[in-house]
């Protein structure tokens, strides 16, 4: 018992242990486990229909797991849901705000329903409106808010009772780049203040940017986990692309650079593949080799593996970034890996 108590004391802020959820015959979540240490950000990454939302719903007491256990700050979500609700904040995929109330009224309502003392609710609402740049719109009915403002108000509502653990389900889906950056900054501030965050996203760069650890799920199961760097390293090659002024120079370089890494020539360009963890060191060695031979490259580009590559190699299909309408609970396995990398890039930047 004492040992158990010690374990509890050092337990991670969020613990998911073999979570299972079925909808009829469909096993939407098939034994998902992970932990999020206090004050850290976990990115739950996966395509539409992977089961991300279902996992979040189980952790936030909205949906009962059919198997496995989950604890938030040591509280079992099945056995003590009401206590869990007091320490978590949830901002979902859709801005869950009352469109017929003003921004301030929305926050006051959540304050009352979180049982904050009446004397602090007003101040807390004002403070959040200020922090989320909504002060000027505070007394406007939320129906008139832009998409970004709604998301900010929704996140503000999730923070009214100052939860130490925050769940963000695709917080930036559907936002323009400006709105996305704004929300990222807010999330970074929260984490700097000690909040533990579980974030689901289908944006690989979002997980890369915000998350300390990443769990990749697909078809309801964890297929990889680690830091962004670890996931990339697992994938291997960093490619240094060196361009020369003519084919002869490129040909000469191939022989020289074979000592640094695997070399491949494509006309005037030479692609040097090196270990993912040692990109910088290899670059330096490459420069020395070329310098000794008195060769001067025309262009020099470093291609580190991105989470896109990680995702593609893990799932066999591209990270699907289809437009909204993300019924994450179903089996939206997405269109396979047919779309090439360039296609995905283009679609992403077009958003």
């Amino acid at each position, binding site marked *: 018992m004492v040992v*158990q108590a010690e374990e*509890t004391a050092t337990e991670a802020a969020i613990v998911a242990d073999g979570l299972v959820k079925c909808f009829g015959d469909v096993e939407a979540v098939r034994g998902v486990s992970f932990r999020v240490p206090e004050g850290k950000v976990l990115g739950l990454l996966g395509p539409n229909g992977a089961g991300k939302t279902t996992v979040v719903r189980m952790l936030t*007491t909205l949906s009962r797991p059919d198997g496995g256990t989950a604890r938030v*700050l040591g*509280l079992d979500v099945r056995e003590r849901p009401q206590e869990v*609700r007091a320490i978590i904040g949830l901002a979902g995929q859709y801005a869950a705000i009352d469109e017929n109330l003003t921004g301030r*009224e929305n926050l006051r*309502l959540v304050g009352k*329903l979180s049982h904050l003392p009446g004397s602090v609710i007003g101040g807390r609402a004002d403070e959040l409106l200020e922090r989320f740049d909504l002060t000027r719109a505070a007394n406007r009915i939320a129906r008139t808010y832009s998409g970004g403002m709604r998301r900010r108000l929704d996140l503000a509502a999730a923070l009214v009772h100052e939860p*130490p653990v925050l769940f963000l389900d695709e917080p930036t889906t559907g936002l323009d780049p400006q709105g996305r950056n704004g929300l990222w900054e807010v999330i970074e501030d929260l984490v700097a203040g000690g909040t533990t965050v579980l974030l689901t996203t289908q944006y690989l760069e979002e997980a890369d940017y915000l998350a300390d650890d990443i769990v990749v799920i697909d078809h309801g199961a964890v297929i990889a986990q680690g830091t962004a760097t670890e996931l990339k390293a697992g994938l291997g090659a960093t490619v240094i692309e060196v361009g020369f002024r003519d084919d002869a120079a490129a040909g000469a370089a191939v022989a020289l650079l074979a000592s640094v890494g695997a070399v491949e020539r494509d006309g005037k360009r030479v692609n040097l593949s090196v270990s993912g963890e040692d990109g910088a060191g290899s670059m330096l060695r490459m420069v020395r080799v070329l310098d000794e031979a008195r060769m001067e490259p025309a262009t020099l580009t470093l291609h580190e593996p991105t989470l896109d590559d990680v995702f593609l190699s893990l799932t066999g299909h591209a990270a699907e970034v289809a437009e909204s309408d993300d019924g994450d609970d179903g089996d939206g396995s997405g269109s396979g890996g047919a779309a090439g990398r360039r296609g995905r890039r283009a679609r992403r930047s077009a958003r």
Partner: protein
Amino acid sequence: MSTTDTPRAVEATAPTSRPRSSHRGHVMGDSLAIVWRNLLNIRRNPELLVFATIQPVIFVVMFRYVFGGAIQGSLPAGQTYINYLMPGVFVQTIVFGALTTGVGLADDLNKGLIDRFRSLPMARSAVLVGRTGADLVRNFFVVILMCVVGFIVGWTVETDLVKFVEAFLIILGFAYAMSWVFAIVGLSVKDAETAQAVSFPILAVLVFASSAFVPVATMPSWMQGWARNQPVSVVINAVRYLTIGPSPGLTASSVPKAIVWIVAIVAVAAPIAVARYRKAT
């Protein structure tokens, strides 16, 4: 359970602002917060309130002048159609109005608001108690307005003030009970439009196969059993008894019967609705 496994959350949370459990004590406060929110919603959507009141006004006027002459003949001697009609229109209006309880909940569900509420440490029943409570407040004003319109077109209360107030309370009580019934519908469908579509046949069978507008004796015999004993008819007869007084077909026993129906409907529908709310996705 030993004390060693006390979760850290207890220390980790701010002691001032987070009562640990005992959410039962919050049912009242949480429900009032939801009532406040729903009343603000009505105020910010005046067109809904206008729609909810114009319809009954039209019904009163239309039935009074269009069908009055035809139906007068089949009424027991001594009864006027307007006095027969008004209790029917009252109950028809509040039963149709109960549909907005379901539609509103379906909308909250569809927009993710129910998820937000369910993720808060609030009382599980508060969203429904608050919603049905706000609809009760709305109905209070709707029924008063209808009384006024009724008086203008010649409605008279043939009994006394006490019986009139009793009738008023029975109407509101039945309105409240029906709100819970349609709350179940609202929590069982995916959006407001579906809630409306699903509710309408239920409403039609309840309201039109009843004594609301025409005497049950004029209906085919297979329908009379249902039409005479179903809750809408029982409540209407109670209201008629209380506003017209004892007369053929109207007896004092309809009042306790109506009260039993109201209590029974709430006792069955409310727990089902709360259970639906807990599981709503």
